[in-house]
């Protein structure tokens, strides 16, 4: 089973700044994704991180606000840009293990924007 390391685990940021979240998988995964979990809510997919090309964003999410990189099969970053208090959420990366269909999640980044 793949293990996904995510950092930072939490951060408190000022309005208008940006934060980059990193996600490292211990083995190659076929696909990687970024989700957001707002307080007390379920998970919403932000985008699919495509290796070597632009991410595929879901409705309501745009590249200027959430730029994503995936330079190889084991690493991805998500940047939350020009933050506002509404961006306070848990951000989770996930990866699909091509061998057994499971979708694994990183430990999450709890972001608070003041």
């Amino acid at each position: 089973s793949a293990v996904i390391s995510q950092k930072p685990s939490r951060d408190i940021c000022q309005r208008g700044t940006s934060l980059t979240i990193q996600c490292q998988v211990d083995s190659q995964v076929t696909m990687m994704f970024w989700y957001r979990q707002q307080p007390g809510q379920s998970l919403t997919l932000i985008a699919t991180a495509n290796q070597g090309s632009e991410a595929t964003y879901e409705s309501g999410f745009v590249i200027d606000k959430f730029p994503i990189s995936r330079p190889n099969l084991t690493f991805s970053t998500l940047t939350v840009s020009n933050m506002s208090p509404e961006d306070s959420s848990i951000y989770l990366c996930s990866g699909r293990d091509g061998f057994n269909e499971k979708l694994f999640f990183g430990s999450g980044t709890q972001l608070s924007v003041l």
Partner: protein
Amino acid sequence: ELKVEQNPLFLSMQEGKNYTIYCNYSTTSDRLYWYRQDPGKSLESLFVLLSNGAVKQEGRLMASLDTKARLSTLHITAAVHDLSATYFCAVDNGLGGSQGNLIFGKGTKLSVKP
């Protein structure tokens, strides 16, 4: 548009009792997942159900899938306090081959009391 509905959203159980969490989804899908989330933690993969009639069991938890009824159940047998957590079902949207695009239910917050 795929929608996933879970019920109940809150469940308070006594230790030793049995109960079932239900997950309905609105359009055809061939993958359904159950996850557990402890407070402040990431998601732990419990089950992946890949075909109609699939049944999987792990300890006191048993999950089943009826693709014709678009229904999955998570049955809890003889609940213990350690099972207290939030349980999510998620369905693979599978649009355009975008596997791993999961639509999550709102979650069932389970509390097991002595």
